[in-house]
């Protein structure tokens, strides 16, 4: 009874319908028994943001780039006396690093912009609260997520090499060698030297 003129055998659609449901019944269902069985999350899952406090230099890039301004940073300067140096050095000390997860939209820009790898995605997602104010994670709580950060997945063999690798390869090849960017633009199909 198709609208396109051709008529299949009468009742074929009915039999097909029965076959589909019967076949589906014999297959395993896709339901995940979530509270009983933890889901297997893919790498780079965006669960919660973890802070590695030692890496933070209070450069404020994350707080400035955050689209909804949910990162709050306070710091003070501390003098570090280095013996033998002419003057005491100054160092930023982090007083407060809060992320308000009731505002966060999990865009990951803060993690992208952090020049010192102080912020990381963790796949943990079970941190709902009864009070919305409790979603403001302070730096201790953000630091406590750090052990849950998985090791970075292996590099994609078909992808471009990382910037560090490309730079190292170029330096090893000597001056005047093509940079990774130039190679990629000019001859995208040729493999990188030194790979």
């Amino acid at each position, binding site marked *: 009874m198709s609208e396109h003129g051709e008529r299949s055998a009468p009742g074929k659609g009915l039999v097909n*319908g029965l076959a589909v449901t019967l076949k589906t019944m014999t*297959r395993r269902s896709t339901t995940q028994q979530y509270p009983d069985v933890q889901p297997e999350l893919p790498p780079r899952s965006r669960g919660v943001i973890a802070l590695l406090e030692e890496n933070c230099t209070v450069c404020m890039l994350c707080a400035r780039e955050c689209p909804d301004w949910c990162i709050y940073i306070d710091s003070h300067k501390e003098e570090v006396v280095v013996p033998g140096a002419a003057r005491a050095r100054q160092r930023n000390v982090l007083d407060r690093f809060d992320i308000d997860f009731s505002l966060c939209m999990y865009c990951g820009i803060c993690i992208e912009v952090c020049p010192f790898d102080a912020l990381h995605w963790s796949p943990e997602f079970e941190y709902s609260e009864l009070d919305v104010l409790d979603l403001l994670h302070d730096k201790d709580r953000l630091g406590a997520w750090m052990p849950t950060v998985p090791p970075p997945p292996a590099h994609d063999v078909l992808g471009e090499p990382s910037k560090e690798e490309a730079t190292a390869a170029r330096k090893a090849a000597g001056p005047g060698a093509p940079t990774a960017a130039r190679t990629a633009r000019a001859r995208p199909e040729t493999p990188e030297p030194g790979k």
Partner: protein
Amino acid sequence: MPLWLDLLVRVVAVVAAFLVLPLLVGQAEHKVMAHMQGRLGPMYAGAFHGWAQLVADGVKFVQKEDITPRDADRRVFQLAPVVALFPYLIVLLAIPLGPGGLVAQPLDVGLFFVLAVLGIGVVAVLMSAWASANKYSLLGGLRGAAQLLGYELPLVLAAASVAMAAGTLSLPGIVEAWSPWWLLWQAPAALVFFVSGLAEIRRPPFDMPIADSELVFGYMTEYTGLRFAFFLLAEYVGIIVIAALTTVLFLGGWHGPAAEHLGWLWTLLKVFAVSFVIIWLRVSYPRLREDQLQRLCWLVLVPVALAQLVLTAAVKVAL
């Protein structure tokens, strides 16, 4: 065995079947439907794969407030669920389970009795529809009346064919007279009976009187709590009754290997197999439109049933 004890055993057995079999079918429906849709269905109630889900549902329904709308016709409104449920209980009395009088009440006019009692269902639908004082209920009820009255005809004609073939109206007598080649001979009648039986119990794809996407919940819209549970129970008992009647009339009831001892088991197995098909059809097919429903009844099922009657008569005369 004294008469009263004999009577008591029979009645208790029928009531037990009336209460247990629908729960089994309901649970099977939950699970089969879920797996056919790639889900798991109830998993928590009763700790093992949700076996107690319907018990939990029953407890929930009992706890709910029993609301009667202000403008409703109170008496009729409250009586309708019972009228919906009761005929099926009566029908179960006459269905033979095994050979040698394993039936609650052997009747010479069993088939006639069963079909007559099944017809009461339409009264319950009209009662609940009219008494609810709700336009959706009324629309659903009128659809239900048109559907039930229409499909009564092919149902009775198909049953008449098998009664002619067996030469008796007694249900045990029909099973007794049945032989495997009837599967072929009475196949059109079996199909007509099964389809119109589905329509009689208003199961999808014949659930236009309920049609939750058009009529809220049809004639059941205003019902809550225990009375709504009665309607649901009536639906599941209806599955059992239609499956049992199809089994007894067309699939040979207790016939099977070692029928002398395991006849009841064969009957139950066939009933559950047919119930599975009823659930399967519900999952697979969308609801028919109202005009398609009437076309199917009057232009397909009734002519097929009449042709089957002619065929049955011809074979009967020739033999």
